[in-house]
């Protein structure tokens, strides 16, 4: 497999944003509702919700589900 420049750039970005402790997709789905409501209220995020945000950056499927959730909630 050839890693072209754009793929390397993407990998570099994902590597930079890697945290030592990241939650799984399973933990994410049970916290994302809380995350959405907290961001709706403009609250400063607690650590347990910052990791939701960090996971969303790394996981395209969860990002897609977050977008759908916001659509459902009418954001």
């Amino acid at each position: 497999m050839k890693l072209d420049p754009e793929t390397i750039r993407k990998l570099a970005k994902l590597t930079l944003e890697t945290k030592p402790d990241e939650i799984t997709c399973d933990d994410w789905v049970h916290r994302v509702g809380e995350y959405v409501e907290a961001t709706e209220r403009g609250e400063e995020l607690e650590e347990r919700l910052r990791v939701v945000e960090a996971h969303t950056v790394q996981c395209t499927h969860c990002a897609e589900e977050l977008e759908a959730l916001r659509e459902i909630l009418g954001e």
Partner: protein
Amino acid sequence: MTPKSTQRTNEQWLEELRLDGAAGASAQHALRELVAGAVRKATSSRGALDEATLDDLVQVASMHVLDHLDRFEGRSRFTTWAFAVAVRAAFSELRKSTYRSTGGELSTSGAGELESETPGPTRWAEQGEIVEIMHRVIADDLTERQRKAILGELSGASQEELLAELGINRNALYKLVHDARKKLKQGLGAAGICDDQVRGAFDL
């Protein structure tokens, strides 16, 4: 949506959904109505789905919510949590269905292998040291499964393809890729490359 469904508190939802008999059935019906609306809205941008498929998705999603009531911690509205769980179930079903309809063929014949690309003469060359370290970590430090997982994702393979290929679930795949990213980060750090250098080299 019945008036009662909008008036239930989180505690009432949990209590009534766990009841047997008519009271439980009423709450479950109200939940299904809410899930149906959510699934229809969430899938509306994913192409036209026939009524039978939508009904199946609503059924799967509703059952998934009911099966995971113990995971609701009461930190959000119950309905917000339920919508998130329902979307997860519905989208997972749709992704599996799409994967099955393609015959389960992997679109990433090269996933799991690595071929170095020689840095070019201009900007690519400026990134050369970082690229070389990343290639080295991928080739030497990652396990075969970590390599397959991260290269598969980078090559655009669907998650269902990778799950089938590796024989694992979504959480395990995420962990494999996370461990791979951590090794890449450690490799760059061990080589004296700081985050700002990476940002600068790739305009991140």
